[in-house]
């Protein structure tokens, strides 16, 4: 759709719409940042003052120290990193098996894996909770991590990618005597970085923002993750909007940074499959 020729009213209407909707998308986030820098008495002042003067940076340490947020962030990092690493590893291996071998039951296995995508959280929530409880994993890291590390979406993504990798590469490595492990880790893994990166970013986003599962199985405050901590903080300090917004701003920083640096991989991942949510 070349735009060069249509320097007309329609084009400018389009530009206006794009910009206008962009503003709608951005306004709440800008407001969040702006409020996080205001003294409490100015928070509800109308008309809205978008640039607080002077910015009250003290809101940040104050909110941070009010609640064990350092702990929540550490927990979120531990959980997100473990889930991401394990998911990529497991999905990569399973995808490799499904794409580069031929064996009995392979197709049935693949269909079975895919069909688990259909299971909604409502159905899994109750029985998985009971299973985790009987394993004694309530209020533990493994309870947060293990039930979510195997993921059909990741397996599917890795399989599709590896299918497009030439078989001759794998075959050549095997003939060279690289062995099953060597072939995978020295030949296949280095060649699948694009898919690995996409899957890793997706998994990280999903885990960092996970709400229901940590909410259900964690009652011990020292194991809470950021979203849960945020929700509880807001419940208790509902009136101190500037602190709540300061913490909300901090909470979104890791995700926004990740998106910033890996924008291409992120968008390609979504365009590629968009299977999540």
């Amino acid at each position, binding site marked *: 759709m070349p*735009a060069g020729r249509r320097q007309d009213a*329609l*084009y400018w209407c*389009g*530009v206006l*719409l*794009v910009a206008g909707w*962009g503003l709608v*998308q951005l306004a*709440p*986030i800008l407001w969040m940042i702006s*409020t996080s820098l205001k003294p409490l008495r100015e928070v509800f002042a*109308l008309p*809205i003052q978008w640039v607080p003067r002077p910015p009250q940076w003290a809101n940040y340490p104050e909110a941070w120290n009010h609640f064990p947020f350092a702990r929540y962030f550490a927990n979120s990092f531990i959980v997100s990193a473990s889930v991401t690493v394990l998911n990529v590893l*497991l*999905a990569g*291996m*399973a995808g490799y*098996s499904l794409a580069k*071998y031929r064996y009995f039951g392979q197709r049935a296995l693949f269909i079975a894996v895919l069909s*688990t995508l*259909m299971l*909604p959280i409502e*159905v899994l*929530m109750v*029985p*998985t*909770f*009971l*299973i985790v409880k009987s394993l004694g994993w309530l209020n533990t890291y493994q309870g947060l991590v*293990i039930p979510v590390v*195997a993921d*059909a979406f990741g397996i599917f993504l890795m399989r599709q*990618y590896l299918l*497009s990798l030439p078989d001759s590469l794998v*075959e*050549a490595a*095997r*003939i*060279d005597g690289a*062995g099953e492990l060597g072939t995978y880790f020295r030949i296949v893994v280095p060649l699948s970085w*694009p898919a690995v990166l*996409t899957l890793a970013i997706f998994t990280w*986003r999903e885990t*960092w*923002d996970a709400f*229901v599962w940590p909410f259900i199985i964690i009652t011990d405050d020292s194991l809470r993750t950021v979203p849960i901590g*945020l*929700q509880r903080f*807001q419940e208790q300090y*509902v009136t101190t909007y500037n602190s709540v917004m300061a913490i909300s701003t901090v909470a*979104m920083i890791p995700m926004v940074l990740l*998106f910033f640096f890996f924008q291409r991989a992120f*968008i*390609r991942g*979504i*365009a590629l*499959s*968009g299977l999540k*949510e």
Partner: protein
Amino acid sequence: MALPASRSTAAPSPPTAAEAPERPRLARARVAVPAGLRPPARRWTRALGAYAYVAPAGLLLLAFQVYPLFYGGYVSLFRWGLTRQAFLGIANYAQVLRDPEFWRSLLVTVYYVVGVVPAEIVLGFLVAVLLSQRVRGRAAYRLVYFLPYVTSMVALGLVWSWVFNANFGLANAVLRLLHLPPQRWLLEPRGVLALLRGGLSFWAGGPSLALVCVIVVTVWYYTGFHAVVYLAALAAIPMEIHEAARLDGARGWRLMRSITIPLVSPTTFFLAVIATIGAFQSFSIVYTLTGGGAAGGNAAEAGGPLGTTRVVTLFIFNTFYGEFRVGYAMAAALLLFVILLALTLLQLCLGSRRVHYLGGAG
């Protein structure tokens, strides 16, 4: 679920053999040895390797996805509190089907899904079409549209609960500017139709204003995601098709209706399916906006003013986590699953007839 993604054209191109790491040792050994000629020991390690690679993920899926489904079916047959109690057979199911709360939460969910899915798709498509024109600063816009999707949903829920705050919120400030009466937004249990016309019952009043607010936030959150998927689909349409249509005299809306929309229909179909599934599972956005502290209730009573935003996920969560009626919650969950499955199959049937594929028979 396999269909849509495998259709996608924008796959990252894997490196070809030529770009592979410099390993002259490998390059020499190009001849593939037929399986039959390999020593049998080799074949055994290969078969072992194949199963070993798939085993960890497979076993975990079995333990935490497949087994829970059947275990859940077992649980649903019992009165189950903190532990297993009396065997009830299908009594839980019968009771769920008679429970007005269940039906109401189902109605709320239907309102929610019907409000969210078409709006997300239409807005996402419009944004993508606008962005696919050569607007200056396209990358920046893309970032802006996409920003909600990569920020924490709970954090954004908190921001929006302020926007809709009945006393100091942004929404009421705007209404005041327009000399309109302020609203209670997320605290308003009355249906939007009832608010417009006055005095209608729950069933006739339409979704509550609170639910409409939740719908607005959800759409706002996901529009960027839909736009990005559509952008990829639009980029995949060959230039020549548009050129040919233009030569035939198609312009503007006509071009859009006869060329663009039919050609992105696989994407539309795919987005409709995943958005529906996603909307049926919505929890955190509804919970942070109208559960917990935001609406002044407690965790066990999540679901907004008079339960008018209690989607079925929240209903199940409440009966399970708030009241600890585990068997009952599980029966409701499985009934929902059956409904969802039927709906997805229906979508697949309808969709496969309407979708147009490039180069294939429409």
